């Protein structure tokens, strides 16, 4: 048997389980519809000051609900895919494939994360381009930066839930914890902003940006539009560093998941 075949076999069966007809079709429909319905351009200010800010503002506005749906989809895919396999013992059948454990987990992760993220990005960037082609084409770097930053927290929650699912061996509990973390992170942005203003120090913002780098990018673009922000005006390179830290944290959770799955998981 060719080496890639068992991997493709597991990937195909995971994709089949995670994206049953017509779930992705409905998601594409809703992602696209909501992207246009929630899009906003600020409706104030003047042109020529910082178009990049308006592009970032537009992406923020149209990403809200679809990002929430994406996180829920990621959590559901992880907990019902890998979680159910562990809970029901079907993982033993998968282990019978002539494939190393890390390849099995890679196939599962690819199915849970990549396909959902590709669907999300595909519909969002298409919507942006259809709506404002002359804003998106010259500011493609802003678009990519905004999405990479915004997706970091979604992928971070997903990777954390993956590790939890593997440790707990129960998808149902892991999904609840994952949802709680998502709500916690949603609240944290406002909370740290308030705290930073209260103590007149950007430290809470900087610390939280290590987990959610979109906050640093947000402050960077705000400072472009409204001048140097009184509290925190990070440079672009600082924002990129925070993004690196955020993805580093995600990578460490993924590494721990691989380590646990390959070395510690006894079934």
């Amino acid at each position, binding site marked *: 048997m060719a080496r890639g075949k068992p991997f*493709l076999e597991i990937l*195909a069966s995971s994709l089949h389980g995670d*994206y049953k*007809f*017509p779930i*992705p*079709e*409905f998601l*594409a*429909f*809703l992602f*696209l*519809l909501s992207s*246009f*319905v929630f*899009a*906003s*351009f*600020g*409706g*104030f*200010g*003047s*042109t020529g000051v910082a*178009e990049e800010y*308006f592009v970032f503002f537009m992406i923020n506005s149209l990403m809200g609900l679809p990002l929430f749906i994406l996180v829920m989809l990621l959590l559901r895919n992880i907990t019902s895919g890998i979680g159910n396999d562990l809970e029901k013992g079907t993982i033993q059948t998968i282990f019978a494939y002539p494939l190393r454990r890390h390849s099995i987990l890679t196939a599962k992760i690819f199915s849970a994360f990549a396909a959902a993220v590709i*669907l999300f990005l595909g*519909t969002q960037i*298409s919507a942006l381009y*259809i*709506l*404002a*082609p*002359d*804003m998106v084409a010259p500011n493609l770097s802003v678009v990519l930066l905004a999405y990479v930053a915004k997706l970091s927290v979604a992928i971070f929650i997903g990777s954390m839930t993956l590790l939890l699912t593997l440790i707990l061996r129960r998808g149902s509990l892991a999904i609840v914890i994952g949802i709680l973390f998502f709500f916690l992170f949603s609240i944290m942005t406002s909370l740290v902003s308030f705290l930073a203003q209260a103590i007149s120090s950007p430290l809470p913002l900087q610390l939280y940006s290590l987990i959610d780098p979109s906050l640093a990018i947000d402050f960077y673009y705000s400072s472009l539009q409204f001048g140097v922000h009184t509290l925190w005006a990070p440079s672009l390179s600082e924002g990129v560093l925070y993004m690196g830290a955020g993805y580093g944290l995600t990578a460490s959770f993924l590494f721990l998941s691989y380590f646990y799955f390959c070395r510690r998981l006894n079934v």
Partner: protein
Amino acid sequence: MNRRWSTFMGRAGTILMAAGIALVVLSLIPARTEENTDFEGTSLLQPKTYSVESSFFLSFMFDPQRGLYVNVQANRSVTVYLLNIGREYVYEWIADHFSEYQSSSSTAHTTVLESFLSNNPNSVAWQGNTPDGRLEFQYAPTKLMNVTLIFSNPSTEIAEVRYHGKLLNFIVPSERALTPAKFALPVGFVLAIPWLNSARKRMVTKPLSEVVQASSTVSQKSEKTKAQ
């Protein structure tokens, strides 16, 4: 075609079709008039002159979801320009290059306008004529922009222009949503045909396979019970 590839392409096709349907649905939603943004005016254009209209609502910032509707009536053929830059920039450019005009001059000879347009070729967002004295148009920007509405009288006689307009709100301009939908729906359908066909065949043969599967399950269970 390999069954896995056929499934992959088929599902990509159905997703493309779903996206196409979403765009068609969006294109069916009409534009909404922004409340209390109606404006109107009359211009008496001397031969070979143009006029920059200065309605308050035309100084708003326009974006891909905020467009403009304008209806023009004239007693002779005039050219209508909608520029994608603010009128202050037009005034300043003209004052800088033609010293006889002040920076707030909204009327001048058409050669001044021609000079401006030839030096700013990307500034025309929309352009039209009123051959039979009437013209109406709807414009939805593709980026954030200020606009300038200009009437130009190229003839050698006086032209009277009356216009009224309003600001429009779109979820997405219809044509912009329909263009990709026209591509997504047929391409999606073509990609989905092999998968839909095999899905149909599976549905037809399912009862028989289910019978076989059910009978084998029953026989396995009975064997287990015997063994116990």
